[in-house]
């Protein structure tokens, strides 16, 4: 296997493959940075053009776009509070406050380094641990998925800062949004009002862009017409030297990487969950959890490292088992099939050069972020802040609308985006936390459908939820997290 790895490395060092990685990463950062444009769309549109190329050129582009967009999404999240991709939602929590405090440069650098670290760890996990991790994917049935969803939902308790009641309401709103559409288990329609558009439910991407990207634009429009750019913001100061960053973040990076890799091997979960769980864990474990949300760089590091660590590991079920865990993995499998490779258990042995080549490309494009991210983000994108809001607001809104329209080619999506934008704006105004909504939208349906799938499979025997070893493990973890949280709460109450 080691020989195959080394040989593949030689193959991808060919100029064409190197160029495709470079172009892909640059394009990915741009796609990620433009709210509405997303990597899935970009890769789907680009793939047919690569049919006649060498497979590693197509895969290099995919690797670059995938990894680049994860970091790219953080740029508007930090500078404007607008997540460039849904995975960057958690990055806005501390990234934007940092910019407001005059630490925008540090936030961008933190995001860049954390993305690069997360992506690198994930690629290494894919290279060395793919077969055992794939077995874990298989061990997770509906019961385990149910517990994962419950585990994610409990983290709302940590995410909501002050007002628990408002936090719970926000989470319930998220679950409600997730409920709309045809119930996948009975075929019954829920809250669709005989509307064709609502039958498939609200498109997740559109809802998330509406809720998280539109309100900041509206808020920007409210403010007086002034440019936000302050060059002092982006000067490198001492605290952003490489060694210092490593010293500050290595703990967060290691935990977030593990969380990201674990979420990645579970098909269907995705980068935004990885980012939220990582953020959550960093906050839970911090000495001063109150500093999160106020511009704590550790929050940015956790979120960005988590969402990038999801990337390469989400390819594990695809490359080892032929089971695509997300749309990008499905596109990668499609690309392999077009080039005559058969996805499945023998892919690693039959087409070692291509598979290991792709893994190297995922690794190298992550490392490329160290170079490109620093140069691009701070030098180029920060200039966006020079624009007065009279220009910035309409430009961003138009770009976003184009992006959203390209997802499904449906103009109704634009109204839905605006509608959720207004809801998000109002909720912001009333001090409702928005983070629980995304967890509700993502995890509510996941918990429900997996609960019912388990009951279908077990013929309504609920003991199934407690007898399987992995389920028990997740329950134990759940109790530890909740218990420690409760303990902290009582200690503060009694002690203070």
């Amino acid at each position, binding site marked *: 296997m080691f020989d195959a790895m080394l040989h593949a490395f030689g193959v991808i060092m060919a100029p064409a493959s190197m160029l495709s990685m470079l172009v892909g990463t640059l394009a990915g950062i741009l796609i990620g940075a433009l709210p509405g444009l997303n990597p899935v769309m970009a890769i789907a549109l680009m793939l047919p053009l690569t049919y006649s190329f060498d497979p590693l050129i197509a895969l290099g582009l995919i690797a670059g776009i995938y990894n680049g967009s994860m970091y790219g999404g953080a740029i508007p999240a930090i500078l404007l509070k607008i997540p460039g991709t849904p995975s960057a939602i958690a990055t806005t929590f501390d990234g934007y406050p940092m910019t407001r405090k005059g630490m925008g440069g540090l936030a961008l650098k933190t995001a860049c380094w954390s993305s690069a670290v997360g992506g690198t760890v994930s690629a290494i996990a894919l290279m060395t641990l793919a077969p055992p991790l794939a077995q874990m994917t298989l061990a997770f049935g509906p019961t385990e998925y149910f517990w994962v969803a419950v585990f994610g939902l409990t983290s709302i308790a940590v995410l909501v800062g002050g007002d628990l009641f408002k936090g719970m309401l926000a989470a319930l709103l998220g679950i409600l949004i997730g409920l709309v559409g045809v119930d996948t288990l*009975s*075929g019954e*329609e829920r809250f669709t009002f005989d509307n*064709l*558009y609502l039958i498939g439910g609200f498109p997740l991407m559109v809802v998330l862009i509406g809720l998280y990207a539109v309100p900041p634009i509206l808020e920007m429009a409210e403010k007086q017409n002034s440019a936000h750019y302050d060059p002092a913001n982006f000067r490198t100061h001492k605290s952003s030297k490489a060694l210092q960053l490593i010293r500050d973040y290595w703990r967060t990076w290691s935990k977030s990487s593990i969380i990201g890799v674990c979420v990645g091997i579970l098909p269907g979960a995705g980068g935004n969950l990885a980012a939220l769980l990582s953020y959550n864990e960093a906050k839970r474990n911090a000495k001063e959890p109150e500093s999160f949300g106020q511009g704590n760089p550790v929050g940015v590091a956790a979120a960005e490292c988590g969402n990038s660590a999801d990337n390469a590991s989400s390819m594990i079920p695809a490359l080892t*088992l032929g*089971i695509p865990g997300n749309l990008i993995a*499905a596109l990668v499998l499609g690309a392999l099939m077009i080039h005559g490779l058969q996805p499945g258990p023998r892919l690693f042995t039959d087409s070692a050069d291509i598979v290991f080549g792709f893994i190297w490309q995922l690794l190298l494009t992550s490392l490329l972020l160290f170079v490109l991210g620093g140069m691009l983000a701070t030098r180029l994108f920060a200039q966006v802040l020079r624009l007065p809001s009279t220009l910035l607001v309409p430009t961003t809104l138009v770009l976003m609308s184009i992006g959203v329209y390209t997802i499904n080619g449906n103009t109704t999506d634009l109204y839905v985006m605006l509608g959720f934008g207004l809801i998000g704006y109002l909720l912001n105004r009333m001090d409702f936390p928005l983070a629980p909504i995304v967890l509700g939208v993502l995890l509510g349906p996941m918990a429900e459908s997996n609960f019912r*799938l388990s009951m279908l*499979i077990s013929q309504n025997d609920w003991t199934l939820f407690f007898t399987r070893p992995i389920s028990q493990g997740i329950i134990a973890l759940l109790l530890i997290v909740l218990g420690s949280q409760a303990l902290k709460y009582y200690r503060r109450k009694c002690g203070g």
Partner: protein
Amino acid sequence: MYTVRLLGACALALACTTALASNYPNRPIEIIVPAPAGGGTDSVARMLNQYLEPELKQSAAIINVAGGGGAIGVNQVSRARPDGYTLLSTWNSPITTVPHMQRVQYSYDSLTPITSISQSAYTLCVKPDFPADTAEEFLTELQNNPSRYTYGNDGVGGTMRLAAERIFAAYDIQARAIPFGGAGETLQNFLGGHIDIYGGSIPPVLPYAQDGQAKCLIVTSASDNPALPQASGLEALGHPELETVLWRMMLGPNGMSEAHATVIADAVARALENPELLEFLAKQGEVPVLMRGEDLRAALKNESEALGELLGQLGLKRN
């Protein structure tokens, strides 16, 4: 002056319209795919398009209009002008299944049939330790153990589930349907031992069948499938009429001229002679099938009626 120009434009437009039949298509065509970019339907449409454009000597743009199980895109085409410049490239479910389950404003006979493109069967597979080695033994085992076995499928009203239920109904079999989000998810749960039977498309499970980690015993097409020698087609089981497969086609809005439909159908037929395209389809487990005009309409009618009846029995029919 303006009026003169307008009149001129009108005259030109008229002239073009009359000349259309002979030089159709003379401007780019929009092909609507009622599924998101990156899925199976989309990739076949995009791949076919690469070979279709040179045949038509015109560019053709693939436009993804996803949602409503394909209904939104089909709806859009059914309301488009039937001038031959808006076409639909779809799989069968939005045409023959969705209208039974949702209130849509189209049906199979409100669209102009152009040509079918390709089809692929579904398969039912079990683990190597399952007590059956042939399709007959498999069906007997299921008959003898009602409601014991679980089979994963692509969703409640999905074509895969309907394909399986048609066979099960003919053999009086009760098996428990577990609806997953797609073949990948079904495969994951099958390999992980969470369900007994894999029900889904052939390509994902093929390597496992070749390795002996799965026994594929039935394919839902009438004919056998050479890639799965252990599996029987429905002809071999004596029930060719139960064939239910995933197939793809091109349709136009109601009232599209026959001459235009023939131009497109001819171009698709010629495109499907390209060995690269055939190889691509084979990799996806699909074989080209060319049916056009009234044959295609009849096929849609038969399937729509059979599936409507089955959906009624399953309690899923709304319209």
